[in-house]
């Protein structure tokens, strides 16, 4: 280990250090929320700065098992943002239920460290360690509300299926290692290119590919590996659901970028068909089931499955030879994160009083009780629908653009995929707008007084709203995304 190595991994060291500091702060002032929140948010700002400072130059560390490029920087900033917003949204919900805030923040910071490790891994083992470090805190968070039966049930399902899929994934990695004899991503890619030069994929490689795909499909909740999602999302405390629907998902997509795009890049013609089928199934099923939900949290859980499908469209477009597909995927990840976190934050704010459900009835006549919250929720829902000029529209446009482009290169399946995607987007409008209908056009059955929300929650919501509204107008964001995609494509 050299000093240069330490500089390269500075953001990661920073993340671990912040976690440790927050732990000690909680020890020093047990039960106090203020110091924990201040240190964790300030710490996140430092980590973000470190990422930006060190991210300027591409570098590798520890003999090439860790690397920093434009993609790492982009994803790290995204993870920091996700965790910061989640921490901002948490206390309002946790406090009335007597759930500790410090552990919440610490566990989230650990998860972020794992996600950052994935984003920077140049070695399959580092990748796997990062993955486990990211998902284990997720299980804890899902069962965070110990006394709530649904929370426990969701957490157990999540844990069992999650561990199961990790094992399957690891099994697949073993096959690849067996065939190539190396765990370095660059080496794997080279060896695979040589192995498949004849155009045939050996049975062992095919099995490895199948196992890894299955494992990853579980993590991103792609149909038909999505069964854990609705229960885990509905049962978890709402701020946690918001985090689970974006953090581990974007993290898993980071893993896909490092593993499938980089290491298995030479095989992309082989996994293209799989991704296309997964994308169609995921979008369509997620949307169709979301149409029938009466619980908004569960509805958003299914809608997040559908969004996975749209992101897979970007991946498919890349596999069909269009770098724009990756750009679209990354842009989608960012847009989806802010708007989905925002939507869940609105639900969490409504549920501040313990006992308030997330059923549609809760939203009836909300405009009278909570006008600002309803308008913000509407913005997030419209963005999720994909109405311009909000972030969600640009995200959808980007992946569809890549798909259309690939179809004009002669890959007809992508053209079909683009049409399926837009038809799905139209169908999705129905269930998103239904919430708007309840908020604006129905009268509430029971009279409830307005609630007072914390300043931290409002600040987080304002940030999320500004990003949702203006993401498409940030000059240079398209270039940043393009640079990140070119780093691996």
């Amino acid at each position, binding site marked *: 280990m050299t000093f240069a190595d330490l500089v390269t991994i500075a953001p990661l060291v920073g993340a671990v250090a912040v976690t440790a500091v927050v732990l000690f702060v909680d020890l020093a002032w047990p039960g106090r929320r203020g110091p924990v929140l201040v240190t964790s948010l300030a710490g996140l700002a430092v980590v973000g700065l470190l990422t930006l400072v060190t991210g300027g130059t591409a570098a590798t560390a520890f003999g090439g098992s860790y690397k920093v490029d434009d993609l790492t920087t982009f994803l790290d900033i995204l993870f920091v943002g996700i965790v910061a917003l989640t921490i901002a949204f948490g206390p309002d919900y946790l406090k009335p239920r007597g759930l500790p805030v410090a552990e919440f923040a610490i566990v989230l910071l650990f998860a972020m460290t794992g996600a950052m490790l994935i984003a920077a891994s140049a070695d399959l083992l580092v990748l796997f360690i990062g993955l486990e470090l990211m998902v284990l805190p997720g299980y804890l968070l899902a069962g965070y509300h110990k006394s709530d039966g649904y929370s426990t049930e969701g957490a157990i399902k999540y844990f069992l299926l999650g561990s199961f899929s990790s094992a399957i994934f690891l099994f697949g990695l073993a096959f690849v290692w067996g065939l190539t004899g190396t765990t370095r991503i660059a080496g794997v890619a080279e060896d695979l290119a040589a192995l498949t030069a004849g155009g045939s994929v050996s049975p062992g490689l095919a099995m490895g590919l199948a196992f890894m795909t299955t494992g990853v499909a579980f993590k991103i909740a792609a149909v038909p590996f999505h069964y854990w999602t609705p229960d885990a999302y509905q049962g978890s405390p709402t701020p946690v659901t918001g985090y689970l629907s974006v953090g581990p998902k974007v993290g898993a997509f980071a893993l896909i970028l490092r593993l499938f795009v980089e290491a298995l890049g030479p095989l992309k013609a082989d996994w293209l068909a799989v991704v296309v089928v997964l994308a169609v199934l995921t979008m369509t099923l997620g949307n169709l089931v979301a149409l029938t939900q009466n619980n908004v949290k569960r509805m958003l859980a299914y809608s997040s499955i559908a969004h996975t499908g749209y992101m897979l469209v970007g991946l498919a477009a890349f596999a069909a030879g269009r770098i724009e597909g990756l750009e679209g995927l990354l842009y989608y990840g960012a847009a989806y994160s802010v708007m989905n976190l925002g939507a869940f934050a609105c639900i969490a704010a409504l549920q501040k009083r313990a006992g308030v459900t997330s059923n549609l009835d809760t939203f009836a006549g909300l405009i009278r009780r909570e006008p600002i919250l309803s308008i913000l929720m509407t913005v997030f829902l419209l963005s999720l629908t994909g109405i311009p000029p909000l972030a969600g529209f640009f995200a959808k446009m980007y992946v569809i653009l890549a798909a*259309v482009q690939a179809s004009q290169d002669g890959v007809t399946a992508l053209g079909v995929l683009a049409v399926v995607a837009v038809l799905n987007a139209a169908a999705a409008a129905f269930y998103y707008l239904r919430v708007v209908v309840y908020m604006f056009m129905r009268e509430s059955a029971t009279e409830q007084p307005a609630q007072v929300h914390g300043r931290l929650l409002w600040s987080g919501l304002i940030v999320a709203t500004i990003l949702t509204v203006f993401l498409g107008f940030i000059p240079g964001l*398209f270039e940043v995304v393009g640079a990140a995609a070119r780093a691996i494509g």
Partner: protein
Amino acid sequence: MTGVGILSAVTFVPLIGALVVALLPARYARAIALAAALLAWLASLLLVIGFVATPQRGGLFQYVEEISWIPLFGIEYKLGVDGLSLVLVVLTTTLTWVSILASFKPIQTRIKEYMVSFLILEVGMTGVFLALDAFLFYIFWEIVLVPMYLIIGIWGGTNRIYATIKFVLYTLVGSLLMLVAILATAFAYQAAHGGSWAGAFDFEVLRQWATQGGGFDSTLQLLAFAAFFLAFAIKVPMFPFHTWLPDAHVEAPTAGSVILAGVLLKLGGYGFIRWTLSLYPDASHTFAPVIIVLSLIAIIYGAVVALVQPDLKKLVAYSSVSHMGFVTLGIFVFQPQAMAGAILQMISHGLITGALFLLVGVIYERTHDRTIAKMGGLAARTPVYMAIFGFFAFASAGLPGLSGFVGEFLTLVGTFATNPWVAAVAAFVMILGAAYLLWMFQRIAFGEVSGFLAGLGHHLTDISPVEILTLAPLGALVVAFGLFPGILLTLIDGSVTVALRDAGTGTAIAIDPLVVALGLGIVAAAVVARVATLPFGSRSGTGAGAAGPATAESGS
């Protein structure tokens, strides 16, 4: 050629107004909204004054503003105005302030949200007519959707949620496919230019390429045209994509109906002329026979179904389907007079139907009912109101000297030159148009004062000065354009020439009489099916039969 100018002002003054309305207390909402709408209107009038309408320049884009937005894909913020968009923008700004004024009294709940929605709606509509970048066009196109969704859904009638969701889903399916088509077109252009994105979304560049450059290959043209067609046909709406319209109109508040009929339907017609004819000329010709037959079906079907409507608003809504059929017909016969007629028809339909919806709103305000059968003898109770109503009903029926006549007449003359059969059938329908409007007028205006109206007593007041103020400009324009259609024709002449030059003039579409006959057969079947599903009692509209139950009701 660059920078922000008057077009941005016309587009975004309402947005600033919306922000101000949102930030200030609700009691200022009405005044500020009206002020913002009037300001946008005045700015649009400035456009007319500075517009050069000579034959050489009338078809060119003027006041062009161009700012690079997403250079990575050559997407620009580009606005410009030619004769066609100019008249439609002025129509939009005029109808918006009229609608806002007309909403002062009827809208009493959540006035702030209402005015904000209305002003944002204006931003979207104006933007659609001014955008010269395909991507920007799409964004404005979708912006229109949300406020209209809220206006129908929040301030609408009893069945408003069903109507508004239907409206959104119909429109969204069409527009999202259009987005795919826009992207595909941009790629085709980019691929043909060595991967350079410059100008790939720019309307002028694309048009240049489509008509004088290499042009788009036929498969792309057909697919892209199909997608654009779906989006525009749903908006117009053309038969058989019209079913959202009666629901939306009946449930929408009065001002919402005015804008819906007056401007939103025009977005489709404008889209056809501006985008599809110029970018996909070959596909336009391939699809033209289908569109002509569908237009004919819409003209006849709308009129026949309007004839049997028991509800005033529904009658006007179906008459829109019929009138808008003339618009699509006039566009797709590729003949200068017909296209000029189609544009005139758009303007005049916007004015007349807007006014008719306002008038229906006036009576609804007083009676809370729109059933034709319950009215009767209104001429005796509210003479001024009925006189104005009569004026606009005649205008809608195509009385010579008023604007409705000019549009339909020009369309028919142009169509006759290329497709005499089609013109003959369409001309016959003008009689039907007179029939349903005059019959309706006779039922509500004359005869004994119905028991229902008598029961209202002094609540049934005549039209108020403010209501007359909202109708006066529309009436004045209807007369002006009816007597001096030259005002409009000069403005749009250049645009018509350019559009037809792009699409290829003189290539008349000859439609086999057999096809027309087949279309008529479909209409007959559709009408029979539609009439058969109407509740039986509501069909016998007028006279003693319907006055009976109304008397009983008011007597109790």
